[in-house]
């Protein structure tokens, strides 16, 4: 099984050469590579070996798995899923209990140094990590053990990439992102809450195709998907440039589909492909549905102030971006912003915990 190439597997499923070409064209598009790369992709995929994949779930909500298994294009995704050997995934595997753990250990032993380790969820470290355990082992222990034999680690979702919601203040479990624990292996971040399924698959296809990890940005995210901001590619961008903003969710501007910046849209500081790849079979994305971007693929998105506060509001890490945005001429929100800043500073001085209510005062 391990020696079979992807083309062999596809042929067995009755996929013709033309269908393979089509598959490669779609895969190239999925990887956000230039279309001229399709023939190189075809050549590489024809020779690609079936990799062993171990998926570990830690402090997470299974939303990332939901996103992937309900993804947009059954043909392409299922073919890719058939092409990998998913040896361990608590939610998807048939085995349970001791048998499941045995499957993981066997896969690890047989493919030591070669398997791809996928992780969703953050890792609890407080008190040695006993806040989250599977089969009597802490997530911390399991991660260290599994990462030791992995070729690379792919963090699926914001929790494993940046800590996500378990990491949000006051972080009762001492949650940390995977990269705080795994230091000696390539770690790829595929953040999003959840990530777009096509992006998860795209990263896997890239590994399957070229056996290499993609070009990453300074936060460890593949540049092909996280290179541009939502704002850069937003179809409402012309309204921003024209200074046309919705001021509330039911005003004339909102009905006209104007820019949601003043209603707290985090598009300008959020790197992801929602605006082009979209969600639900390419149907829509939050801004198209009339709600601002929450910034879920960025670190600490949960602690960056209210989702409904304009970015021009100076709060921690977004302050730099907000400064630029403010120059563009968004005056509203600035007054609120100053008040907000005071609330935050006061809260910080008194205690670490800041609630949304504090910020909105």
């Amino acid at each position, binding site marked *: 099984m391990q020696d079979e190439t992807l083309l062999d597997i596809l042929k067995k499923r009755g996929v013709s*050469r*033309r269908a393979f070409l089509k598959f490669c*064209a779609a895969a*190239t598009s999925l990887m956000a590579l230039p279309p001229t790369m399709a023939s190189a992709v075809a050549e590489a995929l024809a020779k690609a070996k079936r990799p062993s994949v171990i998926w570990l779930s830690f402090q997470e909500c299974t939303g990332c798995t939901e996103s992937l298994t309900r993804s947009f*294009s059954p043909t392409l995704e299922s073919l890719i899923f058939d092409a990998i050997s998913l040896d361990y995934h608590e939610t998807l595997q048939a085995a349970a209990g001791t048998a499941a753990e045995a499957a993981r250990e066997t896969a690890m032993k047989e493919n030591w140094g070669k398997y791809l380790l996928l992780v969703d969820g953050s890792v609890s470290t407080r008190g040695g990590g006993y806040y989250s355990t599977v089969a009597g082992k802490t997530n911390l222990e399991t991660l260290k053990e599994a990462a030791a034999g992995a070729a690379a680690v792919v963090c699926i979702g914001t929790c494993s990439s940046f800590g996500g919601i378990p990491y949000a203040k006051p972080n009762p479990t001492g949650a940390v992102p995977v990269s705080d624990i795994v230091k000696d292996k390539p770690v790829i971040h595929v953040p999003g809450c959840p990530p777009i399924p096509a992006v998860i698959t795209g990263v896997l296809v890239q590994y399957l195709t070229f056996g290499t990890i993609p070009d990453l940005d300074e936060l460890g995210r593949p540049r092909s998907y996280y290179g541009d901001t939502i704002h850069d590619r937003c179809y409402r961008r012309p309204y921003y440039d024209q200074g046309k903003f919705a001021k509330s969710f039911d005003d004339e501007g909102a*009905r006209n589909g104007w820019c949601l910046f003043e209603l707290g849209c985090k598009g300008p500081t959020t790197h992801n492909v929602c605006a082009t790849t979209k969600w639900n079979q390419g149907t829509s994305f939050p801004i198209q549905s009339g709600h601002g971007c929450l910034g879920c693929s960025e670190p600490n998105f949960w602690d960056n102030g209210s989702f409904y506060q304009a970015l021009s509001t100076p709060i921690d890490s977004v302050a730099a971006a907000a400064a630029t945005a403010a120059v563009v001429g968004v005056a509203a929100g600035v007054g609120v912003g100053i008040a907000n800043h005071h609330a935050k500073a006061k809260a910080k001085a008194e205690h670490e915990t800041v609630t949304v209510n504090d910020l909105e005062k």
Partner: protein
Amino acid sequence: MSGLDGIGVKVIDAGGDGSARAVLREIETLLTVLVEKGEEGSIDLSSLPLTPEAYDLLEETLGEGEVTAEVSSLGVTRVHETGIPGVWWVTHYNEDDDVMAEFIEVTHCPEILLTPEDDVKDGLEALRARLFEENMNKSSVE
């Protein structure tokens, strides 16, 4: 989806066909390369933030050409040459008729329409086998 009609949302054109104009200029560049150097090119439409208006502008400007083809393989692929010879519109659908990928290909003929070389060899073998079988049947009747 029809329930949405009851909600008072109207989306006003932002005059956002800018990306369509950029795509058209890129097609012009690719076509120049095809004419001058014989090199093919293509544009991945699914990666661009095209509004319905931008799509309309693209379709209107390129127009309809002489060739339309459909490939049934892993779902349907619809191919047509636009009114600009050498500029093809290729849309790959999956088995559920969702768009998997969409390209503008600037070429003499999109690759998906050509018979793969190995398929031609397989075809020759298949034809020979059929003729052999027919001969056998004939001789057994005689």
